């Protein structure tokens, strides 16, 4: 058991070294250091930015999942399950359909965020009502998710011309090809997000003991939960506007971390989830691009096919 960190580091290095070589075009190791060659361009202008985005995205998704699970004291909690991601997506699609806003533009983000916050207000109102337990909050979120997804499908069937190539990929989740500069910004944005979450994560540890105990530990459950939900929703809105709804990483990675690493605090859980989420999504992306090149499978499908059995196995064999 002492070797876990070593294994994790070795695994990370392996992934970082392997993934940029996967893809439809095979590139030569020597040419990537020679400017002007095709391999050089593919490697530095496409695959490295893509890897940076993927690492950041995977890490952010997993650490948000870990945060939600602790905030709501339920291992099922995650923006996707609670309908937050769908709310953002619906907002984005509404902005695109009716106001001709490109997905990812500031105004469309505002639509997405607005709808997500609306859902969060509903969730909080429900969870402070007398009949709420954490299970029922999840059910409420799942119900909301169904309604929002139905609305999304309705909207999409009106604009069938873009289905397939257009809006549909947002459902499955995909990874974008970003410019190098954007990718670097995205990468460091993810790291910054992780650090902010980690620095202010102590109150979440208290929430895991229940709201009434949290108060006697000096933590206001209401204030803490709201601050974290609003803060993370903003980030959820950004991730959805970049990659659609990738559902699986946030649900499974933190849970696997808790089972395997037994983190001593929320802070450890966040760091572990970020790292493992980043690696996991990168591997899934590598696979999605190399099964039938040049076709790219939606990465959400690969994460589920890859992570699902792994998750079930951990549940079955774990403590």
């Amino acid at each position, binding site marked *: 058991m002492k070797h876990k960190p070593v294994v994790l580091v070795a695994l990370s290095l392996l992934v970082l070294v392997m993934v940029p070589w996967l893809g439809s075009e095979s590139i030569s190791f020597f040419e990537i250091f020679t400017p002007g060659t095709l391999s050089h361009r593919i490697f530095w202008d496409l695959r490295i930015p893509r890897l940076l985005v993927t690492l950041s995205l995977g890490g952010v998704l997993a650490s948000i999942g870990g945060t939600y699970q602790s905030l709501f004291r339920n291992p099922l909690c995650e923006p996707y399950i609670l309908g937050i991601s769908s709310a953002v997506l619906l907002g984005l699609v509404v902005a695109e359909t009716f106001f001709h806003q490109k997905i990812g533009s500031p105004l469309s983000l505002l639509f997405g965020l607005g709808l997500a916050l609306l859902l969060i207000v509903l969730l909080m109102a429900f969870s402070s009502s007398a009949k709420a337990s954490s299970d029922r909050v999840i059910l409420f979120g799942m119900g909301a998710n169904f309604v929002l997804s139905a609305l999304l499908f309705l909207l999409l069937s009106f604009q069938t011309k873009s289905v397939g190539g257009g809006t549909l990929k947002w459902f499955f989740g995909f990874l974008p090809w970003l410019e190098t500069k954007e990718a670097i910004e995205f990468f460091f944005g993810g790291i910054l997000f992780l650090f902010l979450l980690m620095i202010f994560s102590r109150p979440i540890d*208290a929430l*895991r003991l229940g709201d009434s105990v949290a*108060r006697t*530990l000096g933590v206001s459950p209401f204030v803490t939960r709201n601050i974290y939900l609003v803060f993370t929703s903003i980030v959820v809105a950004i991730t959805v506007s970049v990659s659609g709804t990738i559902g699986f990483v946030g649900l499974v990675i933190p849970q696997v971390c808790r089972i395997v690493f*037994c983190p001593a*605090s929320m802070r450890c859980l966040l760091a572990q989830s970020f790292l493992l989420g980043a690696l996991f999504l990168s591997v899934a992306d590598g696979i999605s691009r190399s099964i039938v090149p040049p076709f790219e499978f939606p990465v959400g499908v690969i994460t589920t096919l890859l992570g699902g059995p792994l998750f079930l196995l951990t549940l079955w064999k774990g403590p």
Partner: protein
Amino acid sequence: MKAPTIKIKSLMIGYSHESPLNEKRWDLEIGGGTLTAVIGPNGSGKTSFLRALMGAETLLSGEVLVGTEAESVESWTCKKISRFFSYLPQESLFDSLQETESYLKLAFLPRQGLLGRLSTDDISQFDNFAAEFELRAYLKKRLQDLSSGERQRVFLGRVFLQPSQVVLLDEPTNHLDPNVVEKTWALLKSKKNKKTMIVATHDLSQVERHCDSVIVFSGKDLLFSGSVSEYQGRQIKRLVFPLTY
């Protein structure tokens, strides 16, 4: 420092202002450094009462004054609550995958800074406490791998490890075997004086043997509040629980 006295003035408790649990307002006083039992049938308001004492939403109206503090608890910030109160709920919520040690160390959270580092004092206090409370064997185990008795001991440990002045325990001996129940009460008795302890419980015989005073709720009323000897003398027990002997 002496454990604080708690003065309760015209208290109404419950979950909504339309239907409070008590009909008449309650006035009572809980002595500093005493072990006080709160007894009464299920649903008579024991839990609501404990939670009202620390200013939770079950305090509908009235005042709870702790020690020399001028303000009633409902206007306190959570930070201030954490300096005075530690609380064991009837059913403790916990993360079953968490290790006992990190669970226990949450007791220090109120005085930790942003980074959550423990001072060397806190660490040595923790080690002493774990030894005294016989928790050393559990520290590296996950909470789910402890028996329910062991786990309850860990929960109690967290409550006493927290540097508070008032300890509120809601049926702390539920699910425990008779030996452990006895040990728990002995432990509570050994910890009083330094802390004002208020325990909601159904362990009637232990109440008579270990507690200093008793508060009795029956249905919608405060039936009795006074010393254990008076409680025994007036045979209060038969009034609330007529089927027990």
